[in-house]
């Protein structure tokens, strides 16, 4: 993508905060070294996005192995041991390798542009955070080839499955997760430092676009919970290698403690994967409704409320471990409480569209699908939040349906919407409308064919993470598998859209969308390598 950005030599601005190689006045390194050493937020953003796309396809292939095995009852294609590795790796790669880096990539590209900053606050650190990721995930993928195979204990890696009974490669899994975690933490520090310190003069916090706001809050969540994840996997490492008994009942430890610690990280983590999506959708819906976002302040407060509440609900993943009644009730009610700020957001998006003059460009299609289908996931979440009902639903395909609705047509569709929205800014060309419409409709159909039947198979009792199933689930699984392959294949269209868009297409002006108002639309399309070296004049708008 960015290889088409005309490198604009601006030696007179060599003192900008964007220190490092590129600004040192010498010729920029070319070829591979340029990408290896870049400290430019746009190039690093592009790297993140390309990395995420690659991981998305690798994780997708693993998911299709799972779906192919589940196409019919019985064992056909893979051994149960390998099946377990596929479900585990799919989850890990999609969460830590696809969704999170995609959001960080979007933040790298768009946060400086949206707040009128010349670059991220810490450009070299930025480079380092990115390059940790390929190392982490090559390591993670390589565990599949190690003796005993890769991680096979589910993306939630519950002890003692991941300690006492784990394959020998588990220490490498822990190391790779540490690296990915450090990358996220450094990314979060950078984003916070950028947003708090580099805003254009005159831009107050309550003037920031919502994508910036949601990312700021997400970054705080990352700072708060990634160290807890690091702590948990360090304890695992010590249990495995140094004979401690944090999670080992034989030595006086407690496996349930693992689940508490994991979900204390894990639940905020699921919000880390959705809050930036809220921000993207809050940018797109007003643009294509040609109206101001309805309830800007309430959006900010709702995001903050969700973030704070997300620390108080973790045990809704543990209703069946034997919590005392008061705890069941506490976590049930706090979980349901989260639906309130979430509902405020959905209400505001709908209210923004109300009486707007709406047009259905590709980003808007994805954003609308997000609102509808994310809400479906929210409703199944509410069902799961009812503790006595969760005794029945837990660890069935109903949970799988729930979190795929919030993550695929939720988080992923928001990322796709963001990509379609900002591609003109990145490449200078509009993405092909016809191709993107095919991509959109095939994705929507594929996603719903895949995940909607899982509600039914789950309610009927089909357990998750098992390579075989009882005959009565055969029809639902057949539909899910066909849908999965349709969805997977249609993502190739997205790659085609990107390639064509980088190569050419209808030229986009600076303000690529008629209703778009934020600062990024004041710089030329494609955005030159260096922007806002002198801060823009920012005119606060009424919200």
């Amino acid at each position, binding site marked *: 993508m960015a290889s088409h950005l005309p490198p604009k030599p601006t030696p007179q601005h060599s003192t900008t905060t964007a220190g490092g190689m590129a600004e040192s006045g010498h010729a920029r390194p070319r070829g591979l070294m340029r990408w290896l050493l870049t400290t430019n937020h746009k190039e690093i953003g592009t790297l993140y996005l390309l990395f995420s796309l690659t991981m998305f396809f690798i994780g997708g292939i693993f998911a299709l192995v799972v779906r192919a095995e589940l196409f019919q009852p019985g064992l056909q294609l893979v051994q149960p041991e390998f099946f377990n590795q596929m479900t585990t790796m799919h989850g890990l790669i999609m969460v830590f390798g696809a969704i999170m880096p995609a959001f960080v990539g979007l933040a790298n590209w768009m946060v400086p542009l949206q707040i009128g900053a010349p670059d991220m*606050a810490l450009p070299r650190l930025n480079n380092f955070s990115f390059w940790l990721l390929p190392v982490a995930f090559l390591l993670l993928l390589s565990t599949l080839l190690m003796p005993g195979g890769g991680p096979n204990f589910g993306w939630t890696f519950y002890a003692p499955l991941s300690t006492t009974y784990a394959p020998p490669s588990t220490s490498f899994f822990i190391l790779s997760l540490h690296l990915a975690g450090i990358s996220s933490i450094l990314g979060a520090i950078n984003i916070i*430092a950028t947003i708090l310190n580099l805003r254009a003069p005159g831009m107050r916090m309550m003037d920031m676009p919502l994508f910036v706001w949601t990312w700021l809050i997400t970054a705080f969540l990352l700072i708060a919970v990634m*160290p807890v994840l690091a702590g948990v996997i360090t304890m695992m490492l010590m249990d495995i290698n140094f004979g401690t008994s944090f999670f080992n009942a034989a030595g006086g430890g407690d496996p349930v403690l693992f689940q508490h610690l994991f979900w204390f990280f894990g639940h905020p983590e699921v919000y880390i994967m959705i809050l930036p999506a809220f921000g993207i959708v809050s940018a797109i819906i007003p643009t294509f409704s040609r109206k101001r976002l309805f309830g800007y302040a309430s959006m900010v407060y709702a995001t903050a409320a969700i973030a704070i509440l997300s620390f108080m609900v973790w045990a809704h993943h543990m209703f069946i471990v034997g919590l005392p009644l008061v705890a069941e009730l506490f976590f049930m009610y706090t979980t349901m409480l989260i639906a309130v700020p979430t509902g405020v957001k959905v209400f505001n998006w709908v209210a923004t569209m109300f009486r707007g003059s709406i047009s259905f460009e590709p980003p808007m299609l994805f954003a609308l699908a997000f609102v509808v289908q994310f809400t479906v996931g929210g409703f199944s979440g509410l069902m799961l939040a009812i503790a006595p009902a969760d005794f029945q639903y837990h660890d069935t395909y109903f949970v799988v349906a729930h979190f795929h609705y919030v993550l695929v047509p939720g988080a992923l569709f928001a990322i796709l919407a963001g990509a379609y929205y900002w591609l003109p800014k990145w490449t200078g060309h509009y993405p092909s409308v016809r191709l993107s419409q095919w991509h959109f409709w095939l994705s929507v159909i594929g996603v719903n064919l895949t995940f909607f039947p899982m509600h039914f198979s789950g309610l009927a009792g089909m357990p998750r993470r098992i390579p075989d199933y009882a005959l009565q689930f055969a029809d639902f699984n057949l539909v899910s598998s066909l849908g999965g392959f349709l969805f997977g294949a249609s993502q190739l269209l997205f790659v085609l859209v990107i390639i064509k868009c980088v190569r050419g297409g209808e030229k986009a002006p600076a303000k690529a969308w008629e209703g778009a108002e934020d600062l990024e639309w004041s710089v030329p399309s494609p955005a030159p390598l260096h922007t806002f070296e002198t801060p823009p004049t920012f005119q606060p708008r009424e919200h």
Partner: protein
Amino acid sequence: MSRRDDQATGRAGVRRTVTRTLVVLAGMFAFAFALVPLYDVFCDLTGLNGKTSARAQPLVEQEVDASRMVTVQFITRGSQGLPWHLEVNTRQIRLHPGQREEVFFTFRNNGDATTLARAVPSVSPSAASLHLRKLTCFCFQEQQLAAGETLKAPLVFQLTRDLPADIKTVTLVYTLYPVQSAQAEVARRESITEGDSA
């Protein structure tokens, strides 16, 4: 404000933000580890995880509550391929709160080597664990058995009268775990003060 001032304050601000986030990071990492003892303390106080005291507790002298009966069930199980067998002489007894009771467990090593193991208790409902007092238990230490050896050991316990009235059945599960000899603080029969020969 001039551009130059802006940048100076910007850079100082960045440094301040980074320092603060690093402090929070270190704090949260420490917090994760602090949660382990906190969790144990919390569970000890509330009995939430169904663990019983790891040391012998004295009998509480109190009158037996003859007005109600509680069923106590015993479940034993092995784990992790340990070639031991654990059996209890009564699977279920009925008693009054306040009463002192004695039950015998038999360990047998069916393997062909001397091994160490430990029986780890768990009580459910977990609320009962605060009211279960063990005067004597084989679970306070590891046991060591030679191949084919058998060991009969008592559990002496009391359910105190303040056991919540809604608890009618208490289940006590013992799971046998292998112990690596390196990390064992073996105290073979020393702990089993009562009824060694019974």
